[in-house]
């Protein structure tokens, strides 16, 4: 079946502009995650959605970052007033509730460049 999809694949923006990144999880997966990968680094957790529960936002680096998940499916990560340090690859992942919620399947990521 289809995997996790993300759009756009690449995004170039100017400092101070807002950007929206989209994630389409695997059909039927109840959990959705956003991670950030800075150049040559490991992945940093940003936010976690599970079903209709309140999201775990503990990884968001500042209040310029927010995310929504509509209808328990598609998610949008919004970065307001982008800064150059926001340049990174933003990866989305999803996982089923059962039998193995701990196993996360990743999308191809969105590469964001802030000029």
């Amino acid at each position, binding site marked *: 079946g289809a995997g996790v999809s993300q759009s756009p694949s690449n995004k170039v923006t100017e400092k101070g502009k807002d950007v929206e990144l989209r994630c389409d999880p695997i059909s039927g997966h109840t959990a959705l995650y956003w991670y950030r990968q800075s150049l040559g*680094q*490991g*992945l940093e*957790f940003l936010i976690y959605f599970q079903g209709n529960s309140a999201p775990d936002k503990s990884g968001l680096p500042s209040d310029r970052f927010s995310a929504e998940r509509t209808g328990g499916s598609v998610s949008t990560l919004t970065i307001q007033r982008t800064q150059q340090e926001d340049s990174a690859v933003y990866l989305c*992942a999803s996982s089923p509730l059962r039998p193995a919620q*701990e*196993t996360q399947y*990743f999308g*191809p990521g969105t590469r964001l460049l802030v000029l």
Partner: protein
Amino acid sequence: AQTVTQSQPEMSVQEAETVTLSCTYDTSESDYYLFWYKQPPSRQMILVIRQEAYKQQNATENRFSVNFQKAAKSFSLKISDSQLGDAAMYFCACYAGGTSYGKLTFGQGTILTVHP
């Protein structure tokens, strides 16, 4: 909270030979899972292998196997009969409950080069 450490920034191997990538972790949780992910230049994170901490038997997936040493908190990945397509960045990751529920904690990654 947990930490994951990969002490080898880069490794190389000849095609058809065997290579081992190292990973150590730390967690206060008794129930956790460990993973190796592969990230080729395409950026797609691909699950290579997973290990449940409660299982003593080391996981294997075709040419990939792990050496899980629970007491030492070590989780190394062995790639046998290396192929050119194995060249990628490899990440070790840990998933545990408690306050870290829902989050994968990743190491810094190891770049694997495969020489023909």
